[in-house]
């Protein structure tokens, strides 16, 4: 049985892959450090996440650590949903 977290992760990876093509969001852990995504990609990702999860990502959350991997993004989303 898949747990809730795995389902949420799958949903997020699907959303990210549809937003930015050609990036391995499932395994990539240094999206920002290795400049896998550009600042333009990042603003698109932010817009999609805000739309999909109905949350607002304040500037204080816009730090590289929160966007390094899908896992980091999911943790940020959960924190904002609380």
């Amino acid at each position, binding site marked *: 049985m898949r747990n809730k977290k795995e389902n949420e992760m799958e949903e997020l990876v699907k959303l990210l892959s549809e937003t930015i093509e050609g990036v391995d969001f499932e395994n990539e852990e240094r999206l920002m450090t290795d400049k896998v995504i550009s*600042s333009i990609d990042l*603003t*698109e990702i932010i817009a999609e996440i805000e739309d999909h999860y109905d949350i607002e990502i*304040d*500037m204080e959350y*816009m730090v590289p650590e929160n966007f390094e991997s899908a896992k980091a993004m999911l943790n940020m989303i959960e924190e904002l949903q609380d």
Partner: protein
Amino acid sequence: MQSGYVNGLFKDFFWKGKIMVFTTLRFLAFLVCALVVFAICPRKHRWLSLLGLSIAFYCIASVKYLPYILFTTVVIFLAARAIGKTWEKLDADLKAEGLTKESKKALKAKAKSKAKKILIFALFLTLGVLCYTKFTKFLVGPINKALKSAGSGKTFSAASILVPLGISYYTFSTVGYLLDVYWKRYKYETNYFRFLLYAIYFPHILQGPIERYNRLGQRLKAELFFTWDNFIAGGQLLLWGYFKKLVIADRVDIFINSVYGDYSHQAGITIIIAAILDVIYIYCDFSGCMDIARGVSQMLGVELDLNFNHPFFSKNVQEFWRRWHMSLGGWFKDYVYFPVSTSGWVKKISKSVRKHGSDRASKIAATIFPVVITWFLTGLWHGTGKTYIAWGLYYGFMIMCSITFETEFKKLTEFFKINTKSASFRFYQSIKTCCIFAGGRLLTRPGSLYKTAVCCRRVLMRGNLRPWKLTDGSLFTYGLTYKDFNVIFISVAILITVSVLQEIGQVRETGTLRERLAKENIIFRWVLSFGLIFAILIFGIYGPGYDSSSFAYMEY
């Protein structure tokens, strides 16, 4: 060497101008004193010695500048403290038991409103001073014209407006700190003098890099060591910077000035050569200065951030600006581009376009405003004339083209079966990046948009290209001899070789070139260091009569 020459050299370098430009003997004398003071000072108090030295460095330029930097740092320090305390109080209030979701929301909104008011007030004061000192002199002309046409005899003088040393750099650094505290990225500083040192630290006050407080501030807070390894590594970087500036930049500058000084009579090929040499000039001038700044700082045991990372190896113009003047690009990205691109109005426009159009149109709509605003402001940062606004918009346009037609470029390379990972394609990308950059320089370097237009016309004019001027000796009539061109050619070849070796080291993660050199035997290292010193002494452009007055990016 004649004694008159030596006297002239010393007189020129010691007393010409008040600012201690890195290429003056005055600065070298100051550096020796700074290293002695730093080394003999107890380790615990070394930061205070750096503060004292930095204030002295600033005051030697002019004591009149000091109140401006003190005003900005005091305002930002107090505002950041007040905002930080507001967040601390909010955290404490939120920990209270029995709070409902609504009351928590109300508490957050109240704290945010208070912090926002403090932020706006501080930004108004500090950016107000920056705008007043930078922009007023450009308004004096139109104001005087308007007064004259209105029959008033009163006029304003631009000469009375003081532009404090490094105002753009320290204002941007400290404003970045304030915004970071406002966005809760890190804690506020409690010691004003520590904060003042971060703003006024002498290796970076003249031309940056625009450092972040959580990096440079923390490095200056750590125990500062004076070590032989740091001294040697910093010294090597310093020499490399002098080589770029004195041997290459200042030599090619003679040719460029001579060509653009008589732009209306030049052959097309001469203007093309000047434009190519101008790319070499600005890179060697600015990155050379950064090497000197970083080298000096490393000697003092403090690492400064990298400001150049071989920008001409970039694939496109976006990447170029991530590798050229990185601290300024990073500042605009974090404090202008992201806040604008994630602001409500940009999101609204993007959503509305997506509803009525395609995803692609929505992407362009979401990007165009932040890119244009960021580049307009970047242009204004570099200068307030029309040329710099045109320069900013030129890059905004180039970046928008690159984003908009990304899919078409990709399809085109696939259609022609071009291997985009091949060395030849990378070479083409580098040349394309250089050409775009040269186009941008051509907008600002001649001095006005009219002069730029004349230069372009002379290149494109039928029969005016005159390529034979490359070989008939005409190029040696612009202040540079055959020997000078040989020096430029060999120096640029050395520069490219070093850059390629550094780039390879980065890609393969085998460490920096200096780290690899440190592993070589001592004779080889000393031969290299002395070779560099002799190259600077023999081929450097300096001496009596030569005005090594400033670096290109010092005027900002």
